[in-house]
């Protein structure tokens, strides 16, 4: 069993959980995302901070899958989240760890978590860094 790192949602990310979907916006990257099914289920413990082992156990209590069998799909998902800068990893334990709980009644068949990525917002966030500043009055000069 591994106890570190702890994975948790990056502080710059905003998200909202609905009944069956989580909407996430990452302004720094100019992308937004949708999580459904097992991916949406994982977002709650990630908001608190959890290890991969805890997250796989979390899945096993809610889906008909053994924690060890869910781990591979989970790690792929965490790599995706990390690649989109939606989560960070830390060696410091969070203040409150998520409660894995007992297996729920009527566990659903396990489907690997998927990160749905939308990139159309990036077109509206084209970067245009300030340069060519006047040495006289300190203001940018027209390109």
């Amino acid at each position: 069993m591994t106890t570190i790192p702890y994975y948790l949602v990056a502080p710059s990310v905003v998200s909202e959980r609905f009944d069956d979907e989580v909407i996430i916006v990452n302004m720094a990257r100019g992308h937004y995302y949708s999580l459904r099914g097992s991916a949406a289920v994982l977002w709650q413990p990630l908001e608190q901070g959890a290890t991969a082992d805890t997250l796989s156990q979390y899945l096993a209590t809610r889906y008909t899958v053994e924690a060890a069998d869910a781990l591979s799909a989970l790690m792929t998902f965490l790599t995706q989240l990390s690649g989109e800068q939606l989560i960070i990893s830390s060696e410091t334990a969070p203040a409150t760890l998520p409660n894995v709980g007992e297996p729920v009644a009527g566990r659903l068949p396990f489907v690997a978590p998927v990160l749905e990525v939308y990139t159309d917002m990036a077109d509206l966030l084209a970067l245009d860094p300030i340069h060519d500043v006047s040495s006289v009055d300190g203001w940018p000069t027209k390109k």
Partner: protein
Amino acid sequence: MTDTVTVPVDAPAFTQEFSRRCQVADCRQPAQRVQFGDTCLSVVFIGRGNTGFLTDAIAHRFVGPGPAELTVYVVDAQTSGIRPPVPYWTWQQADGHGMIDTHATGYSGHFQQDTDVFTWVARPERTAFLWLADRTQLPDWERSFPLRYILHKWLEDNDRYVLVHAGAVGTPVGGVLLTGRGGSGKSTSTLACLHSSLHYAGDDFVLIDTEQLVVHSLYNVAKLTPDTIGRFPQLEPLVANPGADPDQKAQVFLHQHYPDVVTAGFPLRAILLPRFTGGTDTTYQSATAADALRALAPSTLALLKADGRTFQKMTRLVRQLPAFWLDTGTDLPQIPATILALLSACPVATPCP
């Protein structure tokens, strides 16, 4: 114009010096009051020439003399000679979008490099500045939603009001917000309602009161792509910028041509997410709150360079109103008819406490 060489040391000093330069300008035009919901602005143009570039889109929101909670100086440097004071920040403190880290609570700054437009909002002094290097060089789209960044920043900390990238049509007793990514048919759906009993509150940005669930009109301009003009040929003679560059949308100031159609606002009953089906008919079907947020939030956040505060207000909005996909077809009169049918079937939303 000669200015005393003063180098401000912080945000209040910068604001004070910029205000002084505006107040002593000899080309200061009379203040105009503009009301958006409970928010009243006093807009003072400093410069010479026609101010229509700034006011045509908000002319339907002019009100008579009275107090204002925010004074906005709009400075045309080309005709006034006024420049902002020397910045107290370094430009390494501006991000890639021109947002300036002011290092001061209550102050916001933005420099739009491609248009040479500087915006400064000083909440403690209830003063804002929109400085234009040369208003004649502004792209057409700038005149279609004037003061949007100032309004957004002024209201950003207010839990009640939020600017959103959406259109809105309705009657005095209730209406709908129309939102979606570019090309979804938001403008077509809105403009299809022009000759119906539905009034127009906007097709681009509107102001929402998330407590009372009321939409307030900000801009009366309709922006049309060549495709959209093809669907509404009666609007072509009314285009205010007929010689615009091909990459600029045509603009029709509806308040000038359809003053009875443009409304100050109405209570909201639903959020519609238009999507063009390619068929003839228009229908609607239920959508989720997540669908509505996915349609509303990204472009609003991106266009306003907004943060989690605006996201939370939009979240609150979509949780309070039912959402529907508006599957639009080519028979345009069916669009307002479908919206009216939906409104008659939609209960009045109960605002959250």
